């Protein structure tokens, strides 16, 4: 597969993945471009891989996890305001989770690696093995990330709605 063919097949999914992962359009664009520029330079090797799509997702995810930024740019990246979660007053946690801004706030309370694992599992529908390849860890560690991420969300919701909140996470 050459680089142009890869772009035609994968670019749409990559930008959506980066958008969901970061919840920040500019950061998503930055990370996607950066990963693709570097992938382009190494395409002779990446293009021969069995799953170049996973490898490029790994590059995007690594960029997100390490949050590498150029110094010359004028900002460091926007971030969802995690404090807004604790100030939330919507009584039904299900409603709150469905609220887009609250979702950002909830996700901002997780570690980046946990959030990446959640996005790969529940948004992209990846298997443990695929997520492990992207995150560079074992499948067991992936399951741990996902479990802890869900537990973290559950605790957050319970903290805000301790009386009647029922959360089922499987």
């Amino acid at each position, binding site marked *: 597969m050459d680089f142009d063919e890869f772009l035609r097949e994968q670019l749409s999914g990559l930008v959506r993945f980066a958008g969901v992962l970061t919840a920040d359009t500019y950061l998503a664009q930055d990370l*996607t471009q950066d990963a693709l520029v570097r992938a382009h330079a190494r395409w002779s090797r990446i293009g021969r891989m069995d799953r170049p799509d996973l490898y490029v997702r790994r590059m995007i995810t690594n960029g997100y996890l390490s949050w590498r930024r150029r110094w010359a740019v004028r900002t460091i990246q926007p971030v969802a305001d995690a404090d807004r979660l604790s100030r939330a007053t919507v009584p039904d946690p299900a409603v709150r989770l469905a609220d887009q801004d609250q979702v950002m706030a909830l996700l901002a309370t997780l570690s980046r690696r946990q959030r990446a694992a959640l996005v790969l599992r529940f948004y992209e529908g990846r298997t443990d093995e695929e997520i492990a390849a992207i995150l560079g860890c074992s499948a067991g560690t992936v399951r741990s990330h996902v479990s802890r991420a869900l537990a973290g969300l559950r605790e957050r919701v319970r903290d805000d709605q301790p009386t009647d909140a*029922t959360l089922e996470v499987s």
Partner: protein
Amino acid sequence: MINNDSVRQALGTLERFAPAEDEVLAGLRTGIVRRRKRRQVASVVGVAGAAGMVALGVVYVAPGRGGDGGTPPAATAGTTPTTSVKIATPPAAPVLPFTVGWTPEGYSSQIWEAGRTDGSVQYTGTKDFQAVVVWISAKPRPAAQDGDSEEPTTVAGRMGVIRRLAPDSKETQFIWQLDDGRWAMVGGRAPTVQLATLRRVAESVTTKPTPLTAPFSLTTLPDGYQVASWSGGSDQPFSGSLTICRTVSEPLAGTLAPDCIGVSLHDGTAPAVTLRKDSSLKNPQEIPMDREQVIDGVLTRAPADGTEAVAQVDAGHWASAVSQAAGVDLLRQVVASVRS
């Protein structure tokens, strides 16, 4: 009730943050062109013709060797001496041209860049988006843009501004001038990083230099070249980089001046090819790194245009030296002198 489907649906709402594909493609083309230009050579300068360069060492040619790196080979018996350059002393270790006297608890230096007058460092905490950037330069910080707001303040008794960047005014920067006239910026994202935290970091910045650990070393520095800047940290696409130039320029420009050589250390195995494409992403060309010479017992490889040289430093690292005009022989000398 919340279940996996709820989480899936909630994450799906974040698709709205996906960037436009055409904008990503435009940025990709720009990035590729920039990378390509950085690696291009206007002309290959023969070392023999370069002023000030005198043959001293012994360089061997290993014709016909292929492969894509691996451990550094020993010099091949029976190979032919070719050329060499005058070598001076190892480059000076990096020194951050300022000191940050206080950072929030749990924050650590993640990435840094250090020139003679300009430098920057990013400190990150253990939680998401905890990041504080300290940036010092002889050049003023870029002016505010539409939508930014500024309010006057003082930092360590000197006049400055608090700039809040558009669109949401949460990106906050303290900007002021240090005692020696350089400009300083301390930035972070509110409220993850509190204004009081940024102020305390800013108040702790002094002009005193801070020695840093070099991410790698060179055994020698080419004659006539000086260290322009170092970069390093735990959050780099490579282990670190060094820019050496005949005319020292400050970092942060994002480009490599023609009289400079960029040296970097990477994890893994040195590549066998370098890829070149035009700005439309058409007609990709793999340029083999097949011009081999052994320099001081280290196999170096370069493409035909002589813009780059690579060498395997050890089993886990390879080094690259790139320049628009230095010439492949000098690049080989430099890359062969890299030590991890």
